[in-house]
């Protein structure tokens, strides 16, 4: 351990602690910085995080200094403040200051640092400013403005060390230096938009988000990416019922600070033109009252098979199981070969559904398409499909069309087309729930935006059906989760309604005493 003094406060930290981090802890806010990033190698080029360490002849950068016992550090004295202000000024002299047309405004490192350390009048003559190329598309998702770049090199380090793809470099020297991709190369790896996240200024911006929304209008909601079994933690940025973008939310146990581009673009599903907006009975739009009656009537008559999906939340799966048990219906999921793709060595899993582990936990068997089609054909009564798009597999779609199918889902595709009764459900960003990722981690996602059209919360729809069958049904999500915890034998945990933001692996949380094969 090392004892050191920062701004008059004595602290004790483990040896090997970075002075940058120690200062952030004491100050309650990070030192000014651009190039430092906890997940990237140290560059030490922005020079902003310089502090005074007594006994050293010059100011020293905190990001490349390890704490030493007895260090006395000043981060807020006149010398340090003056240096921060001057270095910030150097970052700005050739900056175009085109905030009015820059997407980064409102979440920009230069703006933020200027408000804290700057607040001076610019001294550089306009004629002396260096100009560089603006608005250069460098990949399918990213557009580069070289003039705004502060050459912190985060994007270069990201591409070199995290994705290992090395598309980006810094060319030329002196103030002619510019970030870019090598000629003939595109920034097209599946993690390219993380460079936009880590770019502290508006040099690298998202083409998708360009000019869409001022960031101070956006509200953030915690979510879990539904794209694969990794379950990257995300932040859903939305305003007035629309999602505008996804950002990764740090979870060092799951996705670190990153997410993949495929997942990032999934917000588009929420608002695409194929969303089911209204219930549909025998091909004609109707209202919920009518649809609800039709559903109840069918359930009373008999339920032959429930086809669940790894896209359903854990709560929905629980209610589907209860419904199947109440009616003596079969309960399966599938087709098992759907929602598969290539995984990579970073985050993207070959399992492209967020809750297959949830299916396994509840003992719901996943069948391949051909077998699933047979089960549908021999169901003998109404088939309820909840979540997913099993009808995309032709043989299953045909079986669904031949059967008396009820579909509780989000999009008007083959499955909805095959169903006699279509009930519009909530998209992943329009409801709250729990997904279990490939680590067995229970991760909660929250409702970000209001539901499209007449879409309803799926668990409520299922609850109403149970009620109609005189079965016990939960009155709230909290109650539902209580039932779920019991069903899964997880009472030793905090109520499932209080999952921590970083998720929980129940067996780990329970400790060795909880049994199992730990």
């Amino acid at each position, binding site marked *: 351990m090392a004892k050191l003094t920062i701004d008059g406060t004595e602290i004790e930290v483990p040896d090997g602690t970075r002075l940058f981090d120690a200062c952030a802890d004491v100050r309650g806010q990070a030192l000014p910085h651009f190039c430092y990033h906890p997940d990237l190698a*140290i560059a030490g*080029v922005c020079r902003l995080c310089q502090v005074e360490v007594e006994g050293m002849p*010059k100011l020293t950068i905190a990001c490349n200094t390890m704490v030493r016992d007895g260090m006395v550090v000043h981060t807020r004295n006149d010398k340090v403040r003056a240096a921060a202000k*001057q*270095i910030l000024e*150097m970052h700005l*002299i050739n900056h175009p200051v085109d905030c009015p047309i820059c997407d980064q405004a409102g979440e920009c490192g230069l703006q933020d640092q200027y408000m804290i350390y700057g607040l001076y009048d610019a001294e550089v003559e306009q004629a002396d400013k260096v100009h560089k190329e603006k608005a250069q598309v460098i990949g399918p998702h990213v557009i580069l403005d070289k003039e705004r770049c502060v*050459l912190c090199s985060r994007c270069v380090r990201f591409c070199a060390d995290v994705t290992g793809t090395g598309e980006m470099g810094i060319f030329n020297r*002196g*103030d002619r230096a510019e970030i870019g991709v090598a000629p003939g190369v595109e920034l097209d790896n599946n993690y390219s938009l993380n460079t936009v996240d880590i770019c502290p200024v508006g040099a690298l911006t998202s083409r998708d988000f360009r000019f869409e929304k001022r960031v101070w209008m956006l509200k953030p909601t915690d979510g879990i990416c539904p794209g694969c079994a990794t379950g990257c933690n995300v932040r859903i940025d939305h305003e007035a019922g629309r999602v505008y973008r996804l950002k990764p939310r740090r979870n060092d146990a799951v996705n670190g600070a990153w997410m993949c581009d495929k997942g990032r673009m999934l917000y588009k599903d929420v608002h695409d033109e194929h969303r089911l907006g209204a219930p549909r009975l025998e091909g004609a739009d109707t209202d919920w009252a009518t649809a609800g009656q039709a559903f109840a009537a069918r359930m009373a008559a008999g339920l032959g098979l429930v086809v669940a999906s790894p896209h359903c939340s854990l709560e929905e799966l629980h209610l589907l199981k209860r419904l199947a048990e109440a009616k003596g219906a079969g309960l399966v999921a599938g087709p098992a070969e759907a929602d598969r793709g290539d995984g990579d060595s970073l985050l993207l899993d070959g399992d492209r559904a967020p809750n297959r582990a949830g299916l396994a936990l509840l003992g719901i068997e996943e069948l391949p398409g051909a077998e699933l089609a047979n089960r549908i054909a021999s169901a003998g009564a109404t088939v309820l499909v909840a979540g997913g798009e099993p009808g995309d597999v032709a043989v299953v779609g045909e079986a669904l069309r031949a059967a008396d199918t009820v579909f509780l889902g989000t999009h008007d595709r083959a499955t909805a087309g095959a169903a006699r009764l279509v009930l519009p459900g909530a998209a992943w960003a329009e409801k709250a729930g729990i997904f279990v990722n490939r680590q067995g981690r229970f991760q909660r996602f929250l409702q970000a935006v209001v539901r499209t059209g007449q879409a309803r919360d799926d668990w409520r729809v299922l609850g109403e059906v149970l009620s109609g069958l005189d079965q016990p049904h939960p009155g709230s999500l909290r109650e539902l989760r209580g039932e779920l915890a019991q069903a899964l034998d997880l009472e030793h945990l905090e109520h499932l309604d209080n999952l921590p933001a970083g998720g929980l692996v129940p067996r780990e949380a329970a400790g060795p005493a909880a049994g199992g094969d730990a």
Partner: protein
Amino acid sequence: MTPKELQILSARFGRDNGHKLAVYEAEGGYTALRMALSGMQPSEVREVVKDAGLRGRGGAGFPTGVKWGFVPEGADMIYFMVNADESEPGTFKDRYLLDYDPHQTIEGTIISCFAVNARTAFIYIRGEFGWLVDRVQKAVDEAYAAGYLGRNILGSGYDLDMIVHKGAGAYICGEETGLINSIEGRKGQPSIKPPFPAVQGFLDKPTIVNNVESVASVPWILNNGAAAYKAIGTEKSCGTKLFSVSGPVKRPGVYEIPLGLSFREFFHEWLGGMADGEELKAVIVGGSSVPVLPAADIMNCNLDYESLGQAGTMLGSGGMIVIPERSDMVELIQVLMHFYYDESCGQCTPCREGTGWLYRIVKRLRGGEGSAKDLDLIEHVCGGMAGLTICPLADAAVMPMRSFLDKFRPEFEALIREPVPAVSSSRWPRGEQE
């Protein structure tokens, strides 16, 4: 002009055959190497050089023997780099050493490598010295053939491989970590420290980087002993130093002087004073990166680290630029500011942006578009650069800028009161960027 007994480095300067192995050997060459390899331990060699008080001759002046001591014990691989990237304006002494006496540098390098247990040495020669790279390579080949390089040198069991590496035009590769990064196949941008190169340098292995003149001094020190070296020069500035002299003196060139020689004597006796029709105005004594001294100030100095330090400048690389009375000091500082703007590696913000800004302010000033606040602005920019960067290039730009403004301020002020029209018909420097 150097007395024979002080020709530690320059014995073969100006000759047309001094570069040949036979000549070097006939004049005592490789005796020191034999001595080191046949009877001395590496630690003993380090002690001799440390004791002799040899200081890095590239410009930093750091004690060479002390630097050698930073290599950790028991390292499995150690590299040695000879810094022949000589690019400091006003400096052309390493050129003379490599051109006229490459074997001296080679011998000095082998001994130095032995002293730090290095097994591979690179001689990094700036690309603009392409005209002498073949000569150096030939000398290295001769050394291999004679058994001074390669495996089991002179039967001692010591192996050393030596590679001649050509640069490609970047002053910043003269900074030791810039040089290391350059040889690794990257841009020659300096590295942040820690880690320090002696511990973690080339390919993350311990690496020592020494200037040509530093290693070239080693054979004489070993042959004649530390005491003899210390007997020359002053207490803190031992031995001899090569001064590169340019400007309108009667006899410009490279001179080996005993440190501590008075500038007055050097200027009048050795250099013959100013050329006919020229008057002395100022001198930049240690390469362009040190503060300028007006004539009256330099005349009272001795040419050693301490005396020049006390006068407010530095011995640096010993690149002595003699500035005549006819010179326009603002024009000269514009030339220098363009140099640092051109050569800044661009990595860290204060230097990258500051060097460009300084150049543009001075250029505007000279073009008659400057205002009084520009002089304060210059100092403000300097304040945002000095001491705040990864390497000293920013300081190297700031020191001459501040000193020119400080010592010759009226010339700057005159430009504000009476704008001087741009006199030159040529758009200099290199025209593609202003």
